[in-house]
Structures are given as structure tokens and as C-alpha cells.
């Protein structure tokens, strides 16, 4: 990895992000959801927000902001044939990925920090939650790179992102209306956001293993897609 190249890609992508209205609205979503949830909790007279709701906001930040922005940036490079130009320059695919991920991560963290501030999330979250979020960030990075490079257009990313959004963002909510022991609940326990919720509720190795399993699976997927993107035959 060449830091000069990473910096060049980062500066270009940050400017492009700021000029792209469809990406600029993404960081607003978790903030709006956080405000709405906060209003709901206050109206209901609850003392604090349930952890499932907090994790819906966290998942929204990573899925709607980080995943969508990484995937959209790569898909747009594919669609407009600019990725080929970068690959034919001294920049390696790793430089390009890291440059884009830093832009997305920066925007995501700003959005998430504001959203958590609105819902007093910092008082509810434990140190172990930040480990879970770090592992989740790696999963989302691999997922965004894989989907973005595989998609030939921005429109395709939107189609791919729907199941990701539903599967990730709303999976903690299933715990609220499905009884313990139900097969659906067992399945969602293996989804990364539920693993983070479980890690918050009870510090055991199982949720960490689930998250590592997702990292390995998404990492393999990303490596396959990256190696295909480098070839054009």
C-alpha cells in the first residue's frame, strides 16, 4: 500500500462525495431515525432507549451510510469506466479501496456520533460494544467493496442494497415479536447486528465468533470480486 496514492484517492473521493447529492443525503438518515426514536421513547415515558433500537441506529449508520457509499462509489467508477483509468495508473486496487473506505468511514463516524448523541447512546453502550462495532465495520467494508465492484451500475447497487438493509438494520427488531427458541430467532442470532446485541447483553465468545465468521465469509467474497475486477478478459 502506498500512502501517497491512498491520500490522492481520499482527496478525490472526498470532493466527489461532497458534490454527489445522492450520497450526501445518506449520513442524514441515521440522524433522522435517531431523532424519531428519541421522540417515540420520550412520548412513551421510557427512561432509556432499548438496546435493540440503539443497534438499529448503529446498523443504519453502517448499512445506509458506509455500505451504500462504498458500494456506490465503486459502482460509479465501474459504470463510468474511471476505475480502469485508476488501475492503469500507479495506484493499486488496495490503494483505491483504502482511499474510498477512509472517506466512507469518516462520513459514517460523524453521522453515527451525532445519532448516538441524540439518543444518549454513549451512556448505554459498554466498551465491548465498540469492539463489536469495529468488527461490524470490517464486515461492511468487505461487503461494500464486493457489491460495488461486482455491480456494473449504481442502479444495481440500489437493488443489491435492499436485502442488506432489511437483513442488517431490522434484524434486532425480530427479537421483539418472535418467541425465544423459534427457528427465525435462531437464524437472526447468526446475523451480525444481532450478534452485536447479544454481545452487549452477555459477554461470551459466541457473538464474537459469529462476527469473525462473517468477516471471513465477506473477506473471501471481496477477494474473489477484487481479483475478477483486476482482470478484464
Amino acid at each position: 500500500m502506498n500512502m501517497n496514492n491512498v491520500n490522492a484517492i481520499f482527496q478525490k473521493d472526498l470532493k466527489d462525495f461532497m458534490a454527489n447529492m445522492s450520497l450526501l443525503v445518506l449520513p442524514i438518515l441515521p440522524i433522522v431515525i435517531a431523532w424519531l426514536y428519541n421522540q417515540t421513547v420520550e412520548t412513551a415515558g421510557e427512561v432509556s432507549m432499548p438496546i435493540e433500537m440503539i443497534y438499529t441506529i448503529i446498523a443504519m449508520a453502517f448499512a445506509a451510510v458506509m455500505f451504500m457509499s462504498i458500494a456506490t462509489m465503486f459502482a460509479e467508477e465501474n459504470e463510468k469506466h474511471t476505475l480502469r483509468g485508476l488501475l492503469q495508473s500507479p495506484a493499486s486496487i488496495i490503494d483505491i479501496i483504502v482511499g474510498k473506505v477512509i472517506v466512507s468511514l469518516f462520513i459514517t463516524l460523524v453521522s453515527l456520533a451525532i445519532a448516538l448523541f441524540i439518543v444518549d447512546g454513549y451512556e448505554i453502550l459498554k466498551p465491548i460494544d465498540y469492539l463489536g462495532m469495529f468488527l461490524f465495520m470490517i464486515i461492511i467494508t468487505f461487503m461494500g467493496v464486493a457489491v460495488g465492484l461486482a455491480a456494473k451500475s449504481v442502479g444495481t447497487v440500489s437493488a443489491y442494497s435492499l436485502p442488506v438493509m432489511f437483513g442488517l438494520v431490522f434484524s434486532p427488531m425480530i427479537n421483539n415479536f418472535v418467541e425465544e427458541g423459534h427457528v427465525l430467532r435462531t437464524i437472526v442470532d447468526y446475523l451480525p447486528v444481532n450478534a452485536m446485541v447479544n454481545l452487549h447483553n452477555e459477554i461470551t465468545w459466541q457473538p464474537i465468533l459469529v462476527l469473525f465468521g462473517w468477516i471471513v465469509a465477506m473477506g473471501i467474497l471481496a477477494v474473489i470480486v477484487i481479483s475478477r475486477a483486476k482482470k478484464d478478459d
Partner: protein
Amino acid sequence: MNHVINVSQLEKKFGKHHALKGIGFKLEPGEVFGLLGPSGSGKTTTIRILIGELKKSGGSIEVLGFGSKEFTKNEYLTQIGILSDRSALYDRLTVQDNLQLFRRLYQVEESVIDRVLKDVGLYNDRKKKVKDLSKGMKQRVLLCKAIMHKPKVMFLDEPTSALDPATTSKIHEILEELKAQGTTILLTTHDMEEATKLCDNVALLDDGVFKEYGTPESLRLKYKEDTMHVMYKDGKEETIKRNVENKERLADLMVDENVLKISSDYPSLGEVFIKVTGRELV
């Protein structure tokens, strides 16, 4: 003589389709070489193999001493410049921001951007967003991107295709300057005037094989007809064979006041192509 590009028996297959059937050529430093042929003849495939976008199916290639397996290395990529119809810019960014990205990647001085923009006549448009530029202006920005790191070899795939005459002329001017500076240029075109004007050597490529190879002048001479074409003031035209029998007739025509023009049937490169392949250049 060390050749900058050395291609021998190059083959490329896409499934059952044999796109290149064993072509070969050598380029000397500072040479401008034109691959001429209609769409689908294998011109772009040749360039895409030479810039590492496609893998060859057979034969050998060497560019600047690098073998085809090294075409993705930075040491190679920093010595070549590429301009093709697949090259693109970032629409939402300004001309300057687009060039700034590649200036940083190639690690060239900041002042290079202003210099290349002045060279292509776009310095005053440097703050414009790319989406607001015309096709010709975008092509000139892409040329800036391709030349800003002073490459030793330029690969140009249809560099003036569908451009206005003024932009075409400007691009030709820059390519002639690059040639004068010793840059080796491989270009594909189906514009025969462009090839005649710019190229030291050309190859007529049809269906994946070289039908002819040589200087534009030598090919035109090889396929010239032994006839003279006479055009009269009343609109009539006549073709006369150039031989001893017609010697006096041609001499008389030279002083005939009714004659508007007498010209030798010296074929253009396009006409040579049709004679060689029996196909139009489209």
C-alpha cells in the same frame, strides 16, 4: 537497434473467435506507428493487450523491455500513456481536480498541470466541471492526463474519433510535438488522412491479420494505377492510360484551354485499404 515495442506472432482468441492471428511489428524510439482497419479488425484488442488489459493467447510481446506479465507493474505503467475511448474523467470534479488526482499518483510537479492545460488550450477552462465540457474538450483533458508524466510510449486508440476539425487539428499538433520530443506512439485509427499525416509506418489490419505494412507513401506508390485523370471545364472526365502511345495526347492536354485539371491516379491510404482487403474502412 533496440526496439521500444517488439511484437511477434501475437494471437488473441475470445472463445472460438480468433481476433488476432499472429501479427508482428517492431517500433523504434520516436516512431509513430498506425494500426489501420475497420471496426472489429483487431486494432483495439492489440492495444488492450499492450497496456495489460487483456492477456494474449499466443506469441510474444515486449514493451520498453517489459514482458507481458509485467504490464501491470508500476515501473511499466509510469512509462506509458494511454488514451482510448474507454478513458474517462470524473464528471462532478473540475478539470483541475481531475488532473490533480493523476498528478499526485504519478508524483509530478504541481506546475505540470498548468503547462499541459496551456498546451491543449484549456488553461482558462481549468475551473470548469468536466460535465460542462464538450466532447472535444474532454478528449483534450484526457490527453493532458495521458501525457502529464512524460511517458516514453503512448497508446492512442482512435484519439480523434468523432471530434470536430479544430480539436482534431490541436490533438495532431500535440502528437507531432510528442514525436519531436522522442515519444514513441502507437495509434489506431480508421481516419486515413490522420494516418498519412502522423505515421512513419502503418499496418493495414483486417480480420486479425496484417494485409500490408510499410510507410504510408510506400503503400500508396505500391498500389498506384498507371493512369492519368483528366477533368474538363464542361464537367466531362476521362481516364487515360499512362504509356508511350498516349504521350502526345497527354502533352496536348497540358496546353488545352478546355482542361481544368490533370492528375495522376495516386491512391489514398483508404483506397489502398479497399484494394488490399476489398472492404470499406468503417
